[in-house]
């Protein structure tokens, strides 16, 4: 059987299966943002945006319909939604830092086997950007990383120790990539699911630290 890699939408689809009814969730820029399109049926999710919008609606793709006074943290215009609330920046981060955020879905440059996350300072830049990444990674109740399994040069992004600056130590709970779903715990990494056609050995070959396999190891379900 041919190996296939999940595309960005499929990764987002898989991540969104982790969304429980009633969760308050912050989605990072990139693949995480796509998760909003795949909320499992019958579950009501509140999306939180760093700039102070809680419970916003869909991204508006047509500039003629966009309201510049209602954007998410990625500067995308969004729809108003019943039950939405607006707060200022300090209150928005009181939500994050006070432990009121159930889940943050973030992109990453690297994740270590201890769950250290590196996703802030841009490689190749002398000064970086950090935004709300540290607040989210340190304080969300749960952190899921959504990313490609290897970088553009084919090097593993799941590593023994991060070589990029660490955003937050031991913060990642789950990694969803284009080829695997991996749980992170105090004992290390556990392979939970694999993309269609991939063997444990093939995934291990693209992953620096040792992967234990879950007793319930299975193919990623995309439906």
């Amino acid at each position, binding site marked *: 059987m041919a190996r296939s890699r999940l595309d960005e939408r499929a990764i987002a689809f898989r991540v969104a299966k982790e969304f429980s009814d009633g969760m308050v969730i912050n989605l990072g820029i990139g693949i995480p943002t796509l998760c909003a399109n795949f909320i499992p049926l019958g579950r009501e999710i509140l999306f939180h945006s760093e*700039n102070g919008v809680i419970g916003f609606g869909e991204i508006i793709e047509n*500039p003629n319909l966009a309201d510049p006074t209602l*954007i998410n*943290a990625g500067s995308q215009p969004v729809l108003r939604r019943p039950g939405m609330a607006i707060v200022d920046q300090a209150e928005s981060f009181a939500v994050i*830092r006070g432990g009121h955020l159930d889940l943050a879905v973030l992109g990453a440059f690297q994740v270590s086997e201890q769950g250290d996350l590196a996703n802030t300072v841009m490689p190749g830049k002398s000064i970086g*950007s950090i935004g709300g990444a540290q*607040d989210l990674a*340190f304080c969300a109740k749960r952190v899921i990383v959504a990313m490609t399994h290897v970088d553009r040069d084919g090097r593993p992004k799941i590593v023994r120790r991060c070589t990029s600056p*660490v955003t937050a130590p031991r913060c990642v709970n789950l990694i969803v990539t284009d080829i695997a779903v991996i749980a992170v715990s105090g004992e290390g990494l556990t392979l939970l699911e694999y993309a269609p056609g991939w063997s444990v050995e093939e995934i291990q070959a693209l992953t620096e630290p040792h992967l234990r396999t879950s007793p319930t190891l299975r193919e990623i379900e995309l439906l």
Partner: protein
Amino acid sequence: MIDKVVGSFDEAVSDMRDGATLLIGGFGGFAECPSYLIAAVARKGVKNLTIVANSAGWGLEFRDQLVARMRPLLRYPEDYYDQGILIERGQVSKAIVSFAAAIGHVQTPLEKKAAAGEVEVELVPQGTMAERIRAAKAGIPAFYSPVGAGTFTAQGKEVRQFDGRECVLERAIRADYALIRAHRADRYGNLVYRGSTRTFNATMAGAARITIAEVDEIVELGELEAEHIVTPGVYVQRVVVRPSSPRPWNVPS
């Protein structure tokens, strides 16, 4: 009689001196950026400024690129200028920001000036920045926060354990001026904001010796309902109304 409405943007910043620390509101979108106040500071030409803002801004050089990049989502107005123009013009000696660098190969004005050693950069987590600004407003000189402990943003900062968790000592960011943008104001300086434009604008109000609000509209006293006011006027010293038609940044207003 209390009347905080000032006749022009130039008048609003007329007492600004070299070396001032400015909080500049907004998050990243154009509708929340105090563009006319920034333009007035650019015209005034004060130097050696410390600016505190979520993002370092794009300035004039990358304005068009940004506008083009955003076109599929939002139409940027002609009179959008951000704090990047102060950096470009060499008015800034230090920037305290959470977004210093642009994604990709573009270099923001701050990246260029920092590389040239002309501007000192302090990169601060966004929530820590918001909390440090609020602390100044609320008379809290310092607080502990777990965010950043053990990482590069906590370098050189005091660390202490609370409830078994390592925390960093963070200091209030006090400023001389807060330049903010709001939707409606009354003559007391009470402010309301539309949608996501509240963000750092409301957080910064009151965190500086002088808070100046750039607003769309002044309304009669009493039109803003007491329960709906977001920023009470006690935090605001000056209010200026945006012009009805766009003006270039270098034309006095």
